């Protein structure tokens, strides 16, 4: 379907296709197999200016916004969900600075992120704080003009690969979620180290790692916004980034559908192409329709964010939940259409199915999304 994308968005798409065809396709299976971070592809992405699109022009970006980020993430995800999330997690990590950072913080960090000179990551999750982000245990204690961090963050995308981290920690544990604050922590800060790198089911090209803080002293000026605003920073960040996960899901699903269509055209059984069978045609039709609906909702959410609307919570969650459920279903069906070949590592669809699963889980499970959606709907209904 033609979404009447403007010239800039079409240019982003073309760049991603070129990166995908020339740089990702040849090595995606190897990165998946070896659990290997795509450092050299991040360099290509940096050189092609894709890290600039979510950063305003005054900080070295091209300031194209959420829709542009969604288009880039979707297009890269068609080739590899793991590489795409390694890219998009930079936007997630930068979001707290973009949304709530001081002028000095923006001036210091955003240009390095726009150029791709440094990578970024967002650190909220802990072993006991997943869906219940209020369960964060990492402490930040003020000590003169420093904060001292102690605790462990878990499952941090781009962990160990990024140089700049936005970290949520408690400054006032007695106040629960209202006692959380957001900080910028740079790689190399004494007391900051990396724990184990996870061995994952999918998106294996992406790095997922523990961040360990042991009496890690950071300058007080690295506090984002004010003490006690950490939970709000985190929630705002996720509201803005969810269309990115939706876009990743749409891209993975599209990649799987493309493979299924290609295979169904080539594969013959009973003397005819298998795409002539109605049972298979109905599957393809549903896959295509669901993807288009997911894409339309994703673009609508991203487009709404770009208008500056504050009313993005519900539609962001809807896009994320719908697109990720579609990605799971479509990739399972793609494996089914490729049959025995689909189950083999030699063909890319089983990887896409493994990659799709995480989109239902991370940046807020789909169960959490549904409760966010319902709460927003109930609130709206009361207002009427």
């Amino acid at each position, binding site marked *: 379907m033609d979404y009447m994308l403007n010239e*800039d968005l079409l*240019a982003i798409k073309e*760049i991603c296709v070129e990166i995908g065809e020339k740089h990702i396709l040849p090595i995606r299976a190897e990165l998946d197999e070896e659990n290997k971070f795509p450092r050299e592809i991040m360099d*290509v992405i940096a050189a*092609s200016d894709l890290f600039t699109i979510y950063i305003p022009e005054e900080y070295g970006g*091209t300031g194209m916004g959420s829709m542009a980020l969604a288009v880039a993430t979707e297009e890269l995800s068609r080739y590899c969900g793991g590489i795409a999330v390694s890219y998009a997690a930079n936007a997630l990590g930068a979001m707290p600075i973009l949304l709530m950072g001081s002028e000095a913080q923006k001036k210091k960090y955003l240009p390095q992120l726009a150029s791709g000179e440094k990578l970024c990551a967002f650190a909220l999750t802990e072993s006991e704080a997943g869906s219940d982000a209020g369960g964060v245990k990492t402490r930040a204690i003020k000590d003169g003009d420093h904060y001292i961090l102690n605790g462990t963050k878990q499952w941090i995308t781009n962990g160990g690969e990024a140089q700049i981290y936005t970290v949520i920690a408690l400054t006032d544990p007695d106040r629960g979620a209202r006692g959380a604050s957001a900080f910028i922590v740079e790689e190399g800060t004494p007391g900051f180290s990396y724990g184990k790198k996870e061995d994952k089911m999918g998106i294996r090209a992406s790095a997922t790692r523990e961040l360990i803080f042991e009496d890690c002293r950071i300058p007080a000026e690295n506090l984002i916004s004010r003490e006690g605003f950490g939970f709000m920073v985190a929630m705002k960040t996720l509201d803005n980034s969810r269309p990115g996960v939706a876009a990743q899901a749409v891209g993975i699903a599209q990649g799987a559908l493309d493979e299924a269509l290609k295979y169904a055209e080539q594969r013959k059984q009973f003397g005819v192409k298998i795409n002539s069978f109605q049972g298979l045609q109905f599957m393809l039709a549903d896959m295509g329709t669901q993807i288009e609906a997911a894409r339309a909702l994703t673009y609508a959410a991203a487009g709404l964010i770009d208008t500056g609307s504050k009313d993005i919570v519900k539609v962001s969650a809807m896009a994320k939940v719908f697109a990720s459920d579609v990605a799971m279903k479509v990739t399972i069906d793609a494996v089914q259409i490729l049959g025995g070949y689909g189950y083999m590592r030699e063909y890319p669809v089983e990887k896409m199915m493994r990659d799709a699963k995480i989109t239902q889980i991370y940046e807020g499970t789909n169960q959490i999304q549904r409760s966010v959606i319902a709460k927003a709907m109930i609130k709206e209904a009361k207002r009427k």
Partner: protein
Amino acid sequence: MKFVVAVKQVPDTAEVRIDPERGTLIRDGVPSIMNPFDTYALEEAMKWRDELGGAVTVITMGPPQAESVLREAISMGADDAILISDRAFAGADTWATSHTLAAAVNELGDVDAVFFGKQAIDGDTAQTGPSVAASLDWPQITFVGKVRELSSKFITAERYVETGTQVVQAELPVVLTILKDANVPRVPSLRGKMKSRKAQIPVWGLSDLGLTGDETGLNGSPTKVVVTATPDPRTGGQIHQGSAEELASKLADLLLEEGGTS
């Protein structure tokens, strides 16, 4: 440094079919692309510009629509571009093309090096680069797989030829033809694409280059295409079966029968 890259717009040969009746290319609906070998020439020039400073100017001779490959080159990082286009240039063979391109290089002035792809995938002649060097009376290094050193005075490059690698040094200005071994061309950048959309691309015609109609296009081309033909497809062949010894002796007999010498 002032570098020039000469590129050519060609039909995407992966998509081209041959009309079996007429023996000509079916170009309808075939996308036009930058000659793939030229992307290595462009990358090499940009690589050395990034290292030494200066600018990369991309030129192409062709019809008005050839401008699109120049915009593509700018999106990849070229500084500017010139379209060499005039009805009087149409139908040029490699000699007339080289004569015209050489005039454009002279018009640009103070050029340190002209980079070509090793050949174009449509004509496959590999003549234009060397012929431009001859027209300019500059040294040329063809089939360059690696540029070892480039300074304001000299270039040292490796030529990959059938017999091995030749290391050649030349004084600037120089003409190079580049192999795909030389580099990995960069992906276009978003800023490059934004710049390429807005770029003003001057068009240079016959009078701009100080040439006459006798030296260019069909009139200036000593080569005449008499006929284009498709070779007959191979037919038949024989299949023999037997042990290795039997087959070897049978093959030797057949070769002798076909008029081989013993």
